[in-house]
């Protein structure tokens, strides 16, 4: 993992202010008045049980959903109403959503092709990413012919191809078995350290969140329970729910957060 991106976009700080989203004409509140700040270059884990609204929040960040209320800013620029196409984010779907009719290389090249980048630039970038993701030689393979772990890295490469300012990952390790998951998790952390793209990772696996994130935000039923560094959360859960949620991992968690003092929006206490 030695090559650095040839043309980098400065990572963006993300500001989420009072964002709410409800489905079914207001009957189903997916995200309720969440406020959060992610400094540039940090990795935030959105943690919570299923139905807590973490995926919806991620999709709002991506521009795949528009919030009913609230504001989303990238580096101070209001992007709330901007569609996904224009947000400059990279998104890794839970199912990878690779294009089955294209090869690995064509998948990775896709975001650059649709932006009409010159062919040699595309070729160089794809090569670069194949090396970075440690999947050199897979370029010509059809995406249906690679393993789960390799597919995940192809999805990641595709997300990173256009040098996004923000990287969003929706349960990226969900479909993999434990060994592979562990390995990839650590590899992702190292990748993040090197690339320093502002990243948001959705997961229900508390061990994973605590192990690799700089910041952890715990969601329950659409509300933000607690947002802090892993170390702080372990030390001070500050809510019964968070404590229960983390209880299974306190024993073996490894915290790799930077430990810097981080700005955190005021956390709502448990209701």
């Amino acid at each position: 993992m030695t090559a650095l991106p040839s043309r980098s976009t400065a990572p963006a700080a993300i500001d989420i202010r009072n964002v709410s989203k409800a489905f079914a004409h207001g009957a189903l509140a997916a995200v309720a008045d969440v406020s959060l700040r992610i400094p540039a270059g940090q990795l935030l884990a959105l943690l919570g049980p299923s139905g807590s609204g973490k995926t919806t929040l991620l999709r709002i960040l991506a521009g795949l959903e528009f919030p009913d209320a609230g504001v989303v800013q990238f580096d101070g620029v209001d992007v709330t109403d901007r569609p996904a196409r224009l947000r400059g984010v990279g998104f890794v779907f839970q199912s990878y959503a690779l294009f089955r009719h294209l090869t690995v290389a064509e998948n990775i090249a896709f975001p650059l092709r649709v932006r009409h980048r010159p062919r040699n630039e595309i070729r160089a970038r794809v090569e670069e990413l194949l090396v970075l993701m440690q999947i050199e030689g897979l370029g010509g393979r059809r995406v249906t012919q690679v393993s789960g772990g390799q597919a995940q890295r192809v999805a990641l490469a595709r997300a990173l191809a256009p040098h996004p300012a923000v990287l969003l990952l929706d349960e990226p390790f969900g479909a993999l078995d434990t060994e592979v998951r562990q390995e990839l998790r650590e590899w992702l952390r190292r990748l993040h350290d090197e690339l320093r793209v502002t990243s948001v990772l959705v997961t229900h696996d508390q061990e994973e969140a605590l192990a690799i994130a700089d910041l952890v935000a715990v969601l329950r039923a659409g509300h933000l329970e607690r947002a802090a560094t892993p170390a702080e959360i372990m030390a001070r859960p500050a809510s019964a729910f968070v404590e229960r949620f983390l209880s299974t991992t306190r024993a073996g968690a490894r915290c790799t957060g930077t430990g810097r003092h981080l700005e955190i929006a005021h956390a709502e206490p448990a209701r």
Partner: protein
Amino acid sequence: MRVARFTRTLLTTAILPLGAALLGACAKTGTPSATGGAVEILNVSYDPTRELYEAYDSLFAGHWKAKTGQTVTVHQSHGGSSKQARAVIDGLEADVATLGLAYDIDAIAAAGLTDTAWATKFPNHSTPYTSTIVFLVRAGNPKGIHDWPDLVRPGITVITPNPKTSGGARWAYLAAWGNALGRNRGDSAAARAFITQLYAHVPTLDPGARGATTTFVERGIGDVLLAWENEALLATHKLGPDKFAIVIPSTSIRAEPPVAVVDRIVDRRGTRAVAEEYLRYLYSPEAQEVAARNYYRPTDSAVAAQYAAQFPHVALFTIDSVFHGWHAAQTTHFADGGIFDQIYQPKAAPQPAVVAGTSP
């Protein structure tokens, strides 16, 4: 990506020529060229005349070229006589109509497409050749069919087309009716009874004369085919005299398939001269010979004498003498609710009550 670009290129490069093709297909066809150059006319005809007009059209092309130096192409369309008449009324651009019965050309005239006095424009009520209705039977006439009453003997299946759609079928019906009238001293009830019996022996009604011939000849269905004489002769000659035989009944009807110029079309297209000559030339000795060679009875007496062996003498009555013309015949027999509708039912249904018949 390859696929996407391919799809895109294919569609954009295809749309232009396709648009052009569609426009071209819609474009004015058969533009008139009354001056020099080449001219095209359309002859809308009835079913059995395919071979006749194939021969006549090349003869006429030579004649017109010699006469005017202009090249003429005659396009042909064939189908059931009434179906063709309806097509002309619906916009089929016929320069001439050479149909199976006067009634169909009257319909075209009634629609305003041609002069109602069309029949006076050419000799013989605009009938250049005639035919009649005869019986076509299997070789050796195994069922011993010699005349009309034999058709209703038990076990005999008769093939004839549908009078509602086929001109030939209407001639056959009227021939049968006329013969029955003659045998029963003008008793129309007896004639009606005979016709009812006759159609009870018909298993299936083809829409056109040629279809009925094919049913009898190729599919081998039926003991006897009520056919145009020209159809019967054509079938025996083309498909083997050892397979079929023609039986001439004692009396039959003089079937007069007329011809007419379709005034509105020829005036719009500027083809009146060539269209009129096309029909006029049908009466010339050369054309009459073509007709005779294609088994139509020529109206030219010299040519008729030449081909007398092919056309045996039959006692013929006309539609005017027995039925007071086509309009009366159509109204009484073939219109909706007319006698044919009353007597012909699908096999299972019971016969309707007989309405007191008017004279045929």
